[in-house]
Every structure is written in structure tokens, then in C-alpha cells.
């Protein structure tokens, strides 16, 4: 037991800054959502209007969650729970990979492994650290809600709901880390699981049934397959029920036990999905240039991202008919919706727009991931070898940047194409497939701003590039999803690149916004290409 504690303390020391930032951000988001609801929607009738619109709109249900009454707490939980739960999941997933597969990749375990520590102790230590982090997170979220004036008991339950999802993904990632061959693939798989949990819950909620008052929606069966869906069932501010917490906890324990078993029965550095040990003896013609190398390094990730966004597009298209039928026989709501949605876009278009907005975020994330390779190449020492040949840093950076731009574009194209095809097959109505496809492409300029800014940070302050890239994306997401709810000033909301891309098909295409974003991306990339010459390549 003592070695486990010692290891956990060691890991905690390495992580303290990162974890503090995650926990404060997540709890801060919860606090901000609660404050926004109490100040912006102080009156019952305001909240009732908000909730009934949401209940009637599958797009809202998909993105946010289940309306469950109009108390301040219930509205806050509806607005904020899914997002905070996703963040808790990501925090826990990355935490686990950092201390398991990543340490193995970098050979740090061999040092620890040589001391009198059994094989599984480091994993126990990581699980202990992750549990502590999620308990602190649960308390911090509860404190934020209480501080914003929500009922105490509900706040604790809601906080526990966030922490429980974190625990679930901690355990799931511990398992993933045993199976996947590298930290990169483990992180990718775990993040995809978190994203999948959000999407499955979204599908369940969008398919849910509203009660006649339009103040409550009951989720459909798919959400039972998502820990976030279970978390919503706690209903902390209405008819609270702790059973879902027990269910999530039990599954987490089973997953963690599985991870421990797998860890105990494998060699250090091996994995259950074995990466190929051998391959081609000679490089193909493509691998004789910087561009060829950049492509080779990115192509696997690119396929993964495109698969994810294609699946998202298919979900968007497949739910089309459901969305169309949602309000049949409910003319009063149909009328309400037509007042809220600008122009005469139908519900299907509204839903498609929301889903393709997520595809835009995916495209940006894929681009950030692609350019951060530059940083890894440098930090892990491969750039030194590569830059000793007669090729400029400009070519090195430019090749990766080009491949990142291709990645971003491909992700948007995959989402748009699959949404357009599936919507057409499903005969859901709404805009024609060409417009739907164009709607996905309309997000590309804004998405490209993220890799371009990230590469600028790589040129200026490489140490901060990962935090800056992912931080920028998270901030843009919060601004986009919560900016209006939080009543943030317009100029601040306008800092998010996504505010400048057109929400087609609901909105018309806005060429100025697209041009502005493209210009910012190009200028940042050009500046990065110049500035990369000005600094040392770190050893």
C-alpha cells in the first residue's frame, strides 16, 4: 500500500498544474452556467419559454440534454451537464494515459519497474489519483452551484454526477491503455469513447418523448448506453435518484478490475492490440520528402478523424426523419419554433445545422492534432535528425501545415458528404444535398484558424503549443455554446472563429466571414513560417 501512495503522490506532483486547471475550468463553467440562468432567466415564465422551445427542438436536445422542469437548478443542469461531463471524461482519460501508456512509451516505467514495486502498483496509483481528482472535481462543481445559489443537496448530486462520469472514463481509459500500442492511439481511442458517449446520449435525447406540458423530456433507449445518459437520470434538482450513480460506479469498478487484470498479465511495453513489429524494408517513393513524411505520419489519424466525422454526418442524416416528425400534431410548438428560427428553415435544417457545427469543431480538432506533431517531433528529438539534411525549416513546417489543412478539409468533407447522402436516402426533407454538403464546407475556414494559430505558437513558444491549441478550441466552444447564455459582450463572443462561419443551411453563406477567417489562417501560417527560423530547435 505504501508504495502505491508514494507513486500516487509522485504522479500527483507531476500533474498538479494540469489537474488544477481542468478542475477549475470545469467547475467554473458550471458556476457560470448557473449564474447565467439565475440572472438571465430569473422569472419562471422566461425559463418556461426556454425549456419548451428546447423540448420541442431535437437539435437542442441533441446538443444539451433533457429538459426537466423549470427550477433554476433543473435549467442549469439541462444547459450544462453534458458539457461538464464530457470535460470530466476528457480530463480523466488524458490523466490515465499520461501515467500509463505514455510512461511506457517513453521508458519511464523501466525506472520505476526496477524498484521494489509490483507490475500493477503504478496502475493502482493512477486509479487512486484519478479517483481523488474526480472527487475534488465533484466537490468543486457542487461548490460552484451552491455559490451560484442553487439548492445544496441537488448541487452535491449534480457534482457527483459529473465526477461519476469522470470516474467511468478513468476506468475505461485504464483498460484502453492496456490494449492500445501507443499513447497517441490510447488518447485518441479514449477521447473517441468520450465523444461517443456524448453522441449516443444526444441521439437518445433527440429521440426522446416530451410530456404534453413540454417541460420534461424522457430520453429514448440509446441513452442507456452512455454514462452521460445515466448521469442525466440522476435528475438532481427534481426527483433526485442516486441509483444511476451506483450503476456508473459499479461499471467503473468492473472496468478498472479488468484493466488491472490485463496489466498484470502482460509485459511492460507490450499491448493487446499489437502494433506491427515489422514492415517494408524499403521506403516507397512517397517517403523521400518532408511532405511524404508528414503524410505518412498523419494518414492513420486522418482516417480515424474522417471515420468519426462521417459517422457524425450519418447520425445527423439518419435522425432527420425523426426530427421531421417530432412536432407533427403539435401546432402550437410548431408555431413557436417558426418564430424562433430565422427564415423558414425547417426543423430538419435546424438539426442538420447544429450537427454540422459539431463537425466543424471536429475538423478544427483534427487540424490542431496534426500540427502538434511538429512539437512532438521536436520534443522527442526527431526534428534534430530531420533538420540536419539540406532542407529548410520552412519546408518542414510547411509540409506538416499542408497535411493539417488537408486533414481539416477532409474531416469537413466526410461529415458533409455522409450527412447529405444519408439525409437523401432517408427522405427527411430539408435542404437539398448540395446545400447540406456546402454547409459542412462552410466551416472549413474557421476550422483552419485553429491549426494556423497553433503553429504560430509552436514557432513562438513551443512549450505552450499544446495548451494553447486545445485551450483555444475549448474557449471557442464555450464562447459558442454559452456566450449568449452567459450574456458575454459581443466582441468577446466574436473572438470565436466559429462565430464567423455560416450556420448553413439555416443561415445564408456569409462570404466576408469565410474570407476573414481564411485570411487570418493564412497570415498566421505565414508568420509562423518566418518565425520558426528565428528560434533554437530545442534539444
Amino acid at each position: 500500500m505504501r508504495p502505491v501512495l508514494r507513486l500516487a503522490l509522485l504522479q500527483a506532483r507531476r500533474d498538479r498544474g494540469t489537474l488544477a486547471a481542468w478542475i477549475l475550468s470545469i467547475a467554473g463553467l458550471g458556476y457560470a452556467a448557473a449564474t447565467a440562468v439565475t440572472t438571465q432567466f430569473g422569472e419562471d415564465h422566461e425559463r418556461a419559454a426556454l425549456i419548451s422551445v428546447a423540448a420541442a427542438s431535437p437539435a437542442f436536445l441533441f446538443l444539451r440534454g433533457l429538459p426537466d422542469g423549470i427550477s433554476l437548478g433543473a435549467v442549469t443542469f439541462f444547459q450544462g451537464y453534458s458539457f461538464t461531463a464530457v470535460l470530466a471524461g476528457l480530463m480523466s482519460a488524458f490523466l490515465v494515459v499520461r501515467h500509463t501508456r505514455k510512461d511506457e512509451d517513453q521508458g519511464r516505467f523501466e525506472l520505476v519497474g526496477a524498484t521494489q514495486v509490483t507490475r500493477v502498483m503504478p496502475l493502482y496509483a493512477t486509479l487512486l489519483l484519478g479517483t481523488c481528482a474526480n472527487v475534488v472535481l465533484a466537490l468543486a462543481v457542487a461548490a460552484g452551484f451552491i455559490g451560484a445559489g442553487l439548492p445544496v443537496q441537488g448541487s452535491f448530486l449534480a457534482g457527483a454526477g459529473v465526477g461519476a462520469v469522470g470516474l467511468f472514463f478513468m476506468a475505461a481509459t485504464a483498460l484502453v491503455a492496456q490494449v492500445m500500442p501507443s499513447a497517441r492511439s490510447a488518447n485518441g481511442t479514449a477521447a473517441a469513447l468520450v465523444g461517443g458517449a456524448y453522441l449516443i446520449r444526444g441521439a437518445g435525447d433527440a429521440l426522446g418523448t416530451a410530456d404534453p406540458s413540454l417541460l420534461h423530456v424522457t430520453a429514448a433507449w440509446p441513452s442507456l448506453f452512455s454514462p452521460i445518459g445515466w448521469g442525466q437520470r440522476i435528475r438532481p434538482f427534481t426527483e433526485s435518484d442516486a441509483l444511476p450513480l451506483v450503476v456508473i460506479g459499479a461499471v467503473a469498478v468492473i472496468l478498472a478490475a479488468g484493466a488491472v487484470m490485463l496489466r498484470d498479465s502482460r509485459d511492460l511495453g507490450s499491448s493487446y492490440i499489437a502494433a506491427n513489429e515489422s514492415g517494408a524494408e524499403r521506403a516507397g517513393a512517397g517517403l523521400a520528402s518532408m511532405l511524404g513524411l508528414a503524410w505518412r505520419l498523419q494518414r492513420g489519424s486522418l482516417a480515424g478523424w474522417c471515420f468519426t466525422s462521417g459517422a457524425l454526418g450519418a447520425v445527423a442524416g439518419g435522425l432527420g426523419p425523426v426530427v421531421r416528425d417530432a412536432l407533427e400534431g403539435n401546432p402550437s410548438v410548431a408555431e413557436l419554433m417558426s418564430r424562433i428560427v430565422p427564415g423558414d428553415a425547417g426543423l430538419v435544417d435546424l438539426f442538420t445545422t447544429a450537427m454540422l457545427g459539431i463537425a466543424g469543431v471536429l475538423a478544427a480538432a483534427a487540424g490542431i492534432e496534426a500540427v502538434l506533431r511538429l512539437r512532438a517531433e521536436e520534443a522527442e528529438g526527431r526534428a534534430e535528425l530531420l533538420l540536419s539534411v539540406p532542407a529548410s525549416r520552412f519546408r518542414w513546417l510547411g509540409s506538416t501545415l499542408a497535411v493539417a489543412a488537408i486533414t481539416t478539409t477532409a474531416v469537413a468533407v466526410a461529415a458533409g458528404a455522409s450527412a447529405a447522402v444519408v439525409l437523401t436516402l432517408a427522405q427527411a426533407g430539408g435542404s437539398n444535398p448540395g446545400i447540406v454538403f456546402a454547409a459542412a464546407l462552410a466551416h472549413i475556414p474557421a476550422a483552419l484558424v485553429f491549426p494556423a494559430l497553433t503553429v504560430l505558437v509552436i514557432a513562438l513558444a513551443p512549450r505552450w503549443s499544446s495548451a494553447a491549441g486545445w485551450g483555444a478550441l475549448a474557449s471557442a466552444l464555450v464562447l459558442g455554446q454559452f456566450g449568449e447564455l452567459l450574456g458575454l459582450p459581443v466582441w468577446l463572443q466574436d473572438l470565436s472563429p466559429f462565430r464567423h462561419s455560416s450556420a448553413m443551411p439555416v443561415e445564408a453563406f456569409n462570404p466576408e466571414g469565410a474570407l476573414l477567417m481564411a485570411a487570418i489562417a493564412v497570415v498566421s501560417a505565414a508568420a509562423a513560417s518566418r518565425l520558426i527560423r528565428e528560434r533554437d530547435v530545442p534539444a
Partner: protein
Amino acid sequence: MHPDSSPVISTTRLGKNFGHTAALAGLDLSVLPGEVHGFLGPNGAGKSTTLRILLGLIRPTSGTARVFGIDPWAEPVRAHRDVAYVPGDVTLWPNLTGGEVIDLLTGLRGGADEDLRRRLIDEFDFDPRKKARTYSKGNRQKAALIAAFSRPARLYLLDEPSSGLDPVMDAVFRHQVRRVAADGATVLLSSHILAEVEQLCDRVTIIRSGAAVESGTLAELRHLTRTRFRITSSAKPQVLSTWRGIHNLRVDGTSIEFDADAADLGDVLDALATAGVTGITAAPPSLEELFMRHYGVQNTGRADHRSLDSQNSQAL
């Protein structure tokens, strides 16, 4: 100056600070065309930093560096045209095979000499079909060495290249250095192992704490290569002290310790044979001892001295 005799590498008063550490403090280094130049110094002396500056990867804080007369920071592409580099700590792309890495690196330099590539893979006993993630440190080093040697270059920058190689592979490596030197290439070989430098190099520059403390041909530095003897003998120490090439004679209980110049080693051994020796050990001086003896310093570098010592005794 005749173009052929102008140095391939020259640095003047080269300085480099990392925050508050001065990794280099006024290094003067001159490497002439066609020579194999040893760059000798303990861990942390600034060898890798110098090589990185010569490659234009980092910018010197002060002083100048020229490679083929070109400033590598200002014009890295031109300066790299005929350079092959093997870093001290080789990391490769985990998903590429060794063969792909070799093709990538030589391809970026204009393509490998196919015949040479095949021979090198064979001599280094290297499996090019394995993914780089499965390679040990020595195998990663081999991949970088094969990539460096399988396309002819005019300048080879090798940073402690044999630190991960076993003795057999080390011999293959030395053979390759001699081959490229015979072809007229210039080699700068950094090392903290005196014996390695002795075997390969025409000239040596010794660096300590970021500055050159000694530079010259091996003959000029002959005093650095004394062998240390420790014998048990009935001979009188006073007699021994009259022999040529004997230094630092010391009596230690029943045994006698002394250092012998390499040039006089034969005579010393002949004399010992007749002096009634009952026990003998002989060892080349460790680099650290050399530093302490010749430069009167305790702290020869900033790094761990024990590792230096142990690596030395392994290598010797």
C-alpha cells in the same frame, strides 16, 4: 589562403547560454579538410551544443561558427549540402521501419548509394524490416550511422556515435570512419572516451566547461596518453625513477605506482621484465584523471563523474 587548406569547420570565441548555464564559453575550434578530428570532453562539456550550432539548429549567443565558410544559422540549407550527422541520442519514428528511416534520411540528402547501403546493413548486422519502436538504443544508432554513411558526404558530424554499440559493431564503425577519411572526407567525432579518439583521430581538441583547453595532433598530445602501472616488485623505487618516460612515481605499501609515456612503453616493459615483478596492472588514464592532472581541476564537467568513469573503464 589556399582554398583547400582553409578549415572546413571554424569557430571563434563561440558562446552559448541556456538561461543561466553557459554551455559554451568562448570555444575556438578548427577542423582542417580531410582530417578526422576528435572532439574530446566529459559529459556536459558542450560537445553536443557545438555540433548543434554547426548544424544551424541553435543560434550562438556570441562568437562565430562557419562550416565550409558558411554561417550555418543564416544559411542552413547551403551549409548542410554535404554534411552527414549522427546525433548523440537518436530517436526515430516509431511507425517507420529501419529501412524506411534510412531511405528517408538519405533520400532527403539526395539518395543513397545502393551498393553502399546494402553493404552497411550487412556489416552492421541490421534488420531493416523491424519497426523503429522495437529497436534498442544501439539499433537506433546503427540506423542513423547507416543513413549517414550510405551517401558520401564531405563532412561527417558524429556525436558520441559508438556509445550504444557493442565492441564488434564499434569495429565496423571505426572501419567506416577510416573509409570515408580515406575518400578525403572530413570527420568531427565527439567522444568522452580517450581510447576511441586515439584510435581514429589525426587531431584532437579537448573541451572542458565550454572552452577548448588543448588542441593538436596526437603526437603533440602524447603526454595525455600515459599508461598507469601498478606493480609489486622487489626493485627499488629509486631505480625505477631513473628509467626514461616514467612519471609520478609513488610507493603505496608494497606496491609501486607510476605513469609511463606511450613512446617509451616498450623500454619500460623490457626493464620491468628484468626487475623481478610479482604482480602488475596497467591501465590507460581515465579522462577525468587527465583533466585533474593536466588542468588542475576537480570539476571537469557538470555531469555525473561516476558515469564517466564507469563508461570509461568499460570502453577501455
